[in-house]
């Protein structure tokens, strides 16, 4: 479980997160939803320590992450994987080198063991025979999948995904969502996903936290989100004709 308590973050005098308290549960896809610019990425980067929080506390199970030094954070960071919005694959490395990079850095595995692990992770995201390609040579959807493969290479307990299906066609987006959901269940990970895509919300939202104006505005899951009478949430959820039709049913 990951728990944020009263987390605040501002840039200059722009308050982006205003005292957010939220729990992310183990074995579930925990979704953070909100409009573009609402602070989802900032919240996620605060959770993983890429941004220092101004106030509050972040806990990983029983460990207080937000007070740790870089070296102390390392222990937890080897237990977490993150999928960045653009994939953030290392351009200078091949697909396989990308996936085994954390293994090379932190384990003493032999080249054969690493290759085996890379192939295993690639098979988990339904890719094969792409080991020697560079990120520039593969499609957007494949990049996302390779990035997921890299994120799970170290068998993480915690998985973070920043808009995993932005910029993808609806079908590929759906494949990626389900992949993340399956991996979460299979490895009992604590998965946190940023999204503004209602499809993902209804597909995989085991737990949903809606961020509005820097505050945690609503919490629920994929079943309760369509029933809510919270006006700001409804404005977000029923922004398109498609979701409005869903409500009428």
């Amino acid at each position, binding site marked *: 479980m990951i728990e944020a308590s009263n987390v605040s973050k501002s840039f200059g005098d722009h308050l982006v997160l205003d005292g957010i308290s939220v729990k992310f549960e183990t074995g579930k896809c925990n979704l953070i939803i909100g409009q573009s610019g609402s602070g989802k990425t900032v919240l996620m*980067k605060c959770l*993983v320590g*890429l941004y220092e929080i101004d106030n509050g506390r972040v806990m990983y199970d029983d460990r207080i992450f937000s007070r740790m030094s*870089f070296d102390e*954070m*390392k*222990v937890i*960071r*080897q237990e*977490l994987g*993150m999928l*960045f*919005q*653009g994939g*953030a*694959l*290392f*351009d200078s490395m091949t697909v396989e080198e990308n996936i085994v*990079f*954390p293994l*090379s*850095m*932190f384990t003493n595995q032999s080249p054969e063991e690493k290759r085996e692990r890379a192939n295993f992770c690639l098979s988990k995201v339904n890719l094969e025979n792409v080991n020697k390609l560079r990120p520039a040579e593969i499609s957007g959807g494949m990049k996302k999948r390779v990035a997921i493969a890299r994120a799970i290479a170290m068998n993480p307990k915690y998985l973070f995904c920043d808009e995993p299906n932005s910029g993808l066609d609806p079908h590929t987006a759906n494949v990626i969502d389900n992949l993340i959901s399956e991996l979460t269940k299979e490895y009992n990970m604590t998965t946190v996903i940023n999204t503004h895509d209602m499809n993902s919300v209804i597909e995989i939202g085991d737990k949903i936290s809606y961020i509005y104006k820097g505050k945690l505005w609503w919490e629920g899951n994929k079943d309760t989100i369509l029933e809510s009478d919270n006006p700001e949430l409804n404005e977000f959820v029923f922004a398109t004709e498609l979701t409005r039709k869903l409500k009428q049913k």
Partner: protein
Amino acid sequence: MISGFLFHIGRYILLIRQVFKRPEKQSIYFRQILIEIENLGLDSLAIVAFVSVFMGAVLCIQMAFNMDTPLIPLYTIGFATRQSVVLEFSPTIISLILAGKVGSRISSEIGTMRVTEQIDALEIMGINPTTYLIFPKIVASMFINPILIMLSMILAVAGGWLAGSLTGLVPSSEYVYGIKAFFEVYDIYYALIKSVVFAFLIVSISGYHGFYTKGGALEVGAASTKGVVHSTMAIIVFNLILTKLLLA
């Protein structure tokens, strides 16, 4: 303006302290250093050679025209060409050229990694991104640049010889006698010390600008320009300081 300058200096010093933190896994760093020697050093061989031969030739011809009097022996042309090359031309001018070539490469490489979140990806894995990205480049440059500079000296002096002989301004024997005359090994040390310091400045300053890039492709371009301009300025200032310290 002044507070902006102080801000950059402060943040630069903090970054450099981070860069020299204990690396995670030494074998990986060793491999990175070899890769960077190729990227930053061997890839610059052609331009260094090209510029050196031509500059040496020009230096020799200019010396010959300036010393167009029977009172000065002809070998002085060889001597003066060598001195200019060793003391100033190779260490400083070649370093300035490397600041343009290597500096822009480093800022844009690291800047792109910043704006595409590759640096965040490193940090998330528990890897210190400053050490991983900048340290191997600094070591590689401080090792390879002095070698490039030595090579430049040899090629520039050879370029002078070629120009002197082909134009008939200096007979080969006089030139060769000149380049061997009054030779002080200290001059070579002086040039190498300079090139090591300049290598550090180029990599650390352009690395700094790359590392703190914010935004997108446009800002990567701006960071690359800043990396080149600021490392060029630093070389010019440190050239004066080092000349005063080492020669006076």
